[in-house]
């Protein structure tokens, strides 16, 4: 029964993956499907650029911002869980929360006024968005390490850095990956609005569709973004499962 279920899961995974690549590289396969959504005489398949190139740029945007969120979020999480940094925990928490409560469009507008149009304001906005889940999960993961384990690490003669690298971070890793998962999904979706400030990404397809009142474009862009989020979320989930299996408490 369980075997049959996992077989199904892999079958669905494969299907979604094939659908995703088909939408990106062979969009003409879907002409009949999208035709009813496009206005009379208008192009059915996005023709203002390469979908593959836009997908890649979209991914780059997400990966770039995630890397920065990861570096900032994890180091901040580590700092505020040290005895010397404990005073900064409430402050950094509220900063990370503020990053989240600001509407994305407002952050973009502010970032544009600071660094101009293009990729950079989008990167800044996405970095801020990914920061909160990664930071919060790092803090929770590190705080969840049992006291007796920390005490043992100290008592064995580990230096603070050895304790962090060999004991605390490995034990917090499953939760940190959970944070990365959430941040990735948020950012894959939010990156689309980067197109409003001239960042190259799949948002262009959607916006082109909105401008020309062409729902076929909107659906194409939306589907690719959505499937990308589902696939990456699932892949990270598998990685996380593997990690937690290795260290069930």
């Amino acid at each position, binding site marked *: 029964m369980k075997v049959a279920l996992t077989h199904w899961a892999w079958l669905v995974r494969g299907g979604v993956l094939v659908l995703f690549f088909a939408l990106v590289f062979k969009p003409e396969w879907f002409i009949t499907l999208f035709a009813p959504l496009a206005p009379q005489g208008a192009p059915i398949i996005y023709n203002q650029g390469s979908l593959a190139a836009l997908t890649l740029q979209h991914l780059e945007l997400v990966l770039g911002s995630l890397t920065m969120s990861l570096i900032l979020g994890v180091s901040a999480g580590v700092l505020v869980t040290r005895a010397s940094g404990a005073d900064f925990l409430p402050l950094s928490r509220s900063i990370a929360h503020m990053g989240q409560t600001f509407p994305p469009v407002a952050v973009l507008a502010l970032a544009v006024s600071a660094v101009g149009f293009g990729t950079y304001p989008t990167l800044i906005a996405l970095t801020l968005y990914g920061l909160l889940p990664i930071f919060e999960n790092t803090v929770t993961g590190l705080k969840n390490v049992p006291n007796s384990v920390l005490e*043992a690490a100290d008592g064995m*003669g580990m230096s603070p850095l050895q304790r962090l690298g060999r004991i605390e971070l490995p034990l917090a890793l499953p939760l940190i990956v959970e944070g990365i998962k959430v941040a990735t999904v948020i950012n894959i979706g939010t990156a689309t609005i980067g197109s409003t400030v001239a960042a190259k990404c799949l948002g262009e397809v959607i916006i082109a569709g909105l401008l020309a009142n062409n729902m076929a474009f909107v659906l194409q862009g939306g589907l690719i973004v959505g499937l990308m989020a589902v696939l990456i979320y699932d892949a990270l989930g598998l990685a996380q499962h593997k990690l937690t299996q290795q260290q069930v408490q």
Partner: protein
Amino acid sequence: MSMISIRQVSKCYGTFAAVDDVSMEIEQGTITALVGTSGSGKSTVLRMINRLTDISTGTIEVNGRDIMSQSPTALRRSMGYVIQGNGLFPHRTVAQNIATVPQLLQWSTQAITQRVNELLELFNLDPAVYAHKLPHQLSGGQQQRVGVARALAAKPQVLLMDEPFGALDPVIRHKAQVDLLAVQQQCGITIMLVTHDMEEAFALGHKIAVMHAGKVLQYGTPEDILVRPAHPFCTQLTGTTERSLKLLALIKAQDYVTPQTLNTPLTLPAEATLREVLAELTWQGQPAANIANSAGQVLGSLTLQQILRAGQAR
């Protein structure tokens, strides 16, 4: 020779003295039990020895060396440390857990593997079965043994134990105490052990220090504490009931035997305590028993009268 010298050590938090002017000399190769209620400062004394807690005033020397003359990490790597609930690293295998300090000391891989296997065998854990298990796959008693094995990995001269058996159920606890005594006799290590359980202190300690409100009220042999309590609190801890039986439990048959073989069907082992001999005599309805060592050689005998005299207040 004393292995640990604690001289006029205090630990103050503001005006509150958690440890108040404590001095103790701990002999090499002995087990010292620090007993007291919670908040008596017993754990703090222990934690000051490996510098997990800083000393406010006074000095501690281990093996003739001031602990403040070494870095805390180097000092801790030279001592074993066992805590309640064992504190095993949940993401590391049994072998990796035991290898912790040798790894920190950068032993060769071969030396580490050899030492890990040696210790697993010492604690009756088959390396082929247990080396690659994770802590959560072990029973409580096994986890506790791995915790002690980990503390002994780098062959320290001193082992510090903070309520090491606190989380074990009574049956496993007794077994763990017997094992610890055997291991201690085998490697001659100096052990300092914190417990709130007077029975445990009596079972394990060559010497017992009774602590209360940051002070050591009495530091002496278990017999001293029982027979010549220096403070009403010591009497309170040992309890006034069954004092004679507790006293008998401290004396081994081999140390009290009369070198004269009697005509009795009962022969008991020399390592038995007088309390155990008394119980057996009562159970069998015999007035006396012969005492034989592990080789089966009869050392002499013990009579009920002699045992009852040994249990009298002095």
